C-alpha cells in the first residue's frame, strides 16, 4: 500500500439544540415615560410558539448510514452496531431524565439508544400501535397496554395528566412503532444513564471526496464541504451465526426506570414486559468467515481491468475478438427498411485512449453512422449518442427553450449583418484597397464596416448641420 492518506475527522461530545422542544411564550413590554408631559404608557405584546421535533419517527433522509448495513452478512462479531444521522442535534433534542442535576446539562445523555437482539430472543414487535397505547389503562381506557407491561407513563395516575405528556400537535391516535421486551432481557441489555452519555457523539468530516449523497437536497448554493453527523453506538456485540436485529429506541423521560450504575434494575416487580418506542430497525447476519469492506473489495473481479466484453476461449471469430478488444458489443438493429440485423455499439466508456476525430456540428445522426465495407456492418455508437443527446435536450425544457431563443436571436443578427455587408461591401473595399474581402476575419471586417459607417454618418450629420445653419 502506498503512502498514508491524510484527512481530518473531528470528534465532539455533543451538539445541543439551541432551543429545547416545547411550547414557548414570549412577552415583550415597553414602558414610555416623558417627564414633562406626565406620560407613562406601557405597551405589551405576547406571542406563543412551539419547537417541534419528531419523537416517534425519524425522517429516512436524516439517516445517513447504519453499520452493519441492513441485510448484510459479515464478520461483525467484534464490532458494535451504530447509526449515523445527518441531523446533528438529534440525540440531544430530548431528555432522558426528568430531574436533571446541575452537572447533567454539561454532559447530556442521549435519549436514543441502540438495542441489539438476536433471532432467539423473544421481542414482540408492534408495528401498528397508537401513541395512546403507551399509557396505562387506568388513565387511557382505550389503551391496549397490558397491566404487566411497563411503558413511559407508568408513574402517571390521573387522566388529566395525559395532555402534559403529549407534544405540541400530538394526538393519542397518532400511530407509532414499539417493541415489547421481556424484563429479564431488558435488564441485561439496557444501558444506564452514564452509559448513554458515552454512546452518542458528533463527528465533523470533509465530504469533498465522496460520491454525492444528498443530491436531492441540492440548493443553488451547494452543500457545505464539512458536514456534521451525529452517531449513536450500540452497547452489545452481535451474536455469531445468528440474525441480529438492532432497534433505535426512545428513552425519553425513561430515566427513572433505567438501572443504576451497577446495573441494578429499577423496574417494579410486577412488570413482565417493557414497551419502548422505536424509530428505526435493521437486521444483519454475523458469520465467522471474513466478509467485510476490505475483503469484498479485494475479491472484486478485475479481469479484464479495462471496460470491455470479457474474452471467451470458445470464441474463434477473429472479427468478434477484435471488436470485443476495442470495447464494442453487438446489439440488435432494426433498420429503417425493416430489416433485422445487428450493429456494433460502444458506449462512452472505452478500454483505450481514443483521439477526437469527429468534427461537429452534424446535420443528422446518419452523418455519424460508420460503415465497414469489409464486414458490411455498421458502427452506430456515435449516431446513437447524437440521437440520445437530441432526445435528452428535448426532454429538458429549460435547456431547449433557451437554446431555441438564443439561436433565433443569432440568426436574426446574422441576417442583419449580412444585409449590411451587401450594402457596404463596395464602398469599404474601395476605401481600404481590399481586393478579397473573404480573406478578412469576420471581426476585422466588422470593425472596418463600423468605422466606415461612423465616418460616413458623422460626415453626413455635419453636412446637415452646416446646411441647417
Amino acid at each position, binding site marked *: 500500500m502506498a503512502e498514508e*492518506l491524510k484527512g481530518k*475527522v473531528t470528534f465532539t*461530545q*455533543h451538539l445541543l439544540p439551541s432551543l429545547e422542544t416545547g411550547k414557548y411564550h414570549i412577552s415583550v413590554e415597553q414602558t414610555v415615560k416623558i417627564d414633562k408631559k406626565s406620560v407613562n404608557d406601557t405597551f405589551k405584546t405576547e406571542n406563543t410558539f412551539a419547537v417541534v421535533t419528531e419523537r416517534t419517527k425519524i425522517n429516512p433522509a436524516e439517516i*445517513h448510514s447504519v453499520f452493519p*448495513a441492513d441485510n448484510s452478512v459479515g464478520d461483525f462479531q*467484534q464490532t*458494535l452496531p451504530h447509526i449515523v444521522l445527518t441531523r446533528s442535534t438529534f440525540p440531544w433534542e430530548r431528555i432522558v431524565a426528568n430531574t436533571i442535576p446541575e452537572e447533567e446539562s454539561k454532559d447530556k445523555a442521549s435519549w436514543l439508544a441502540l438495542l441489539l437482539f438476536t433471532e432467539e430472543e423473544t421481542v414482540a414487535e408492534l408495528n401498528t400501535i397508537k401513541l395512546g397505547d403507551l399509557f396505562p389503562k387506568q388513565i387511557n381506557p382505550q389503551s391496549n397496554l397490558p397491566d404487566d407491561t411497563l411503558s413511559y407513563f407508568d408513574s402517571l395516575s390521573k387522566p388529566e395528566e395525559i395532555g402534559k405528556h403529549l407534544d405540541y400537535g400530538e394526538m393519542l391516535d397518532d400511530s407509532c412503532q414499539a417493541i415489547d421486551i421481556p424484563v429479564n432481557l431488558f435488564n441485561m441489555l439496557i444501558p*444506564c444513564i*452514564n452509559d448513554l452519555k458515552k*454512546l452518542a457523539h458528533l463527528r465533523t468530516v470533509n465530504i469533498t*471526496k*465522496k*460520491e454525492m*449523497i444528498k443530491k436531492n437536497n441540492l440548493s443553488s448554493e*451547494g452543500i*457545505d464541504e464539512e*458536514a456534521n453527523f451525529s452517531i449513536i*453506538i450500540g452497547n*452489545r456485540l452481535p451474536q455469531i451465526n445468528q440474525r441480529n436485529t438492532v432497534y433505535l429506541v426512545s428513552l425519553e423521560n425513561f430515566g427513572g426506570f433505567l438501572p443504576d*450504575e451497577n446495573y441494578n434494575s429499577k423496574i417494579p416487580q410486577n412488570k413482565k414486559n417493557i414497551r419502548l418506542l422505536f424509530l428505526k430497525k435493521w437486521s444483519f447476519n454475523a458469520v465467522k468467515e471474513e466478509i467485510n469492506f*476490505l475483503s*469484498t473489495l*479485494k475479491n472484486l*473481479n*478485475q479481469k479484464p481491468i*479495462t*471496460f470491455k466484453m470479457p474474452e471467451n476461449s470458445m470464441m474463434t471469430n477473429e472479427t468478434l475478438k477484435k471488436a470485443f478488444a476495442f470495447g464494442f*458489443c453487438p*446489439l440488435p438493429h432494426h433498420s429503417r427498411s425493416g430489416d433485422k440485423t445487428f450493429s456494433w455499439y*460502444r*458506449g*462512452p*466508456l*472505452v478500454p483505450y*485512449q*481514443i*483521439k*477526437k476525430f469527429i468534427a*461537429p*456540428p*452534424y*446535420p443528422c*445522426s446518419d452523418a455519424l453512422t460508420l460503415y465497414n465495407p469489409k464486414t458490411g456492418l455498421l458502427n452506430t*455508437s456515435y449516431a*446513437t*449518442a447524437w440521437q440520445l*443527446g*437530441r*432526445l435528452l435536450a428535448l426532454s429538458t425544457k429549460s435547456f*431547449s427553450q433557451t*437554446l431555441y431563443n*438564443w439561436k433565433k436571436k*443569432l440568426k436574426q*443578427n446574422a441576417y442583419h449583418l449580412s444585409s*449590411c455587408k451587401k450594402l457596404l461591401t463596395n464602398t469599404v473595399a474601395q476605401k481600404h484597397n481590399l481586393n478579397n474581402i473573404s480573406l478578412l476575419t469576420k*471581426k476585422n471586417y*466588422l470593425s472596418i464596416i463600423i468605422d466606415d459607417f*461612423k465616418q460616413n454618418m*458623422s460626415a453626413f450629420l455635419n453636412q446637415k448641420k452646416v446646411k441647417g445653419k
Partner: protein
Amino acid sequence: MNLNINNITENFIFSENEEIPLDITNWIGTLKLLVGVPINYIIPNINMLPPESIRFFYLDPNWIESLADGALSLCRVTNLDHQVDVFHHNMLHAQANKTAANYRKSLFKSTNKSTDNTETEDDPNPDLLTGFILRSLVVKDYPGIEVNVYAKNNEELKIRRLEKLSPDILIGIVQGELYSLKIHQAPEALHFGIDCITDDGKGFKKNLRTTDEGKIKESQKVIHFREGDKKVLPISALSEQMREDLSLPKDKFTSAEFALEMIEGLKLIEFSSDQ
C-alpha cells in the same frame, strides 16, 4: 433624421460577441459528464460489468461530442442554422468544458472565494478524461465511501464526477490519465469494536489510542461483559478504565474521547489499472 450613431455601433458589437446563455453551457457541461445519460447507454452489456467488479476506462471524446452535438442540434434545419452552429461551436464547447471541470466543485458551497477564482481555469486537456466504474455491495452497504485517484507518477488527480448510477454502481470520472485509485471507508462511518474476546467468552480486550497523537497502546487488561451471556459492554466501567489507563482527568473523558478509543482503523484498498 433621428439616428444615434453610438447606439447602432454598440448593437453591432454586441451581436458579434453574443454571450452564450449560462443555461446552455452549464447543461452541456454536465451532459459531457454523462449526467442524465441512461445507464444502458453507458453499460450496453451487463457482462462488461458483472456483479462485484471494477473496471477502468477512457472516456471517448467522440461519443461525448456526438452526444453534445445531438443536444445542440435542436432547430438546426437550414444552411444558416448550420453556419451559426459552426461559428459558435468552439466558444460554446470551451465554456461547457469549464462547467464540466468545475461540476463537482459547484456542488459544494464555496467556502473560500479567492481560491475559487484561481481554479476556474480552462481545462488544459479536456479530451483526456478517464475513470473507473465499480459495481459492488460495498457501494450500497457503505454509503459515503471515499475515493482518491492518482496518475502513474503518483500525482493526485482531480475527480470530475463521483456518483452512483444505480444503488450498487459507482462511476468516477477523472481529469487526466487514471492509473491507480484508493477506496476507503467514510470517516463518519468508522465503526467501533473491540480487539478480541477472551477464550471463555466472558470478557474482552481493547487496545488504547493516546488522545494526543493517536498512537496505539496495547492493553492486556481483560474487561468483563455485563452479567449474562449477551455480550453487553459495561460502557461506563469501560470508559472509566480507559480514562484511568490514559491518566486523563475525570471531566476530560466524554463521548468524543470514548468514540476515538473505540473506533477501528480506517480500511483502505488500492486498485491499479496495471494488470
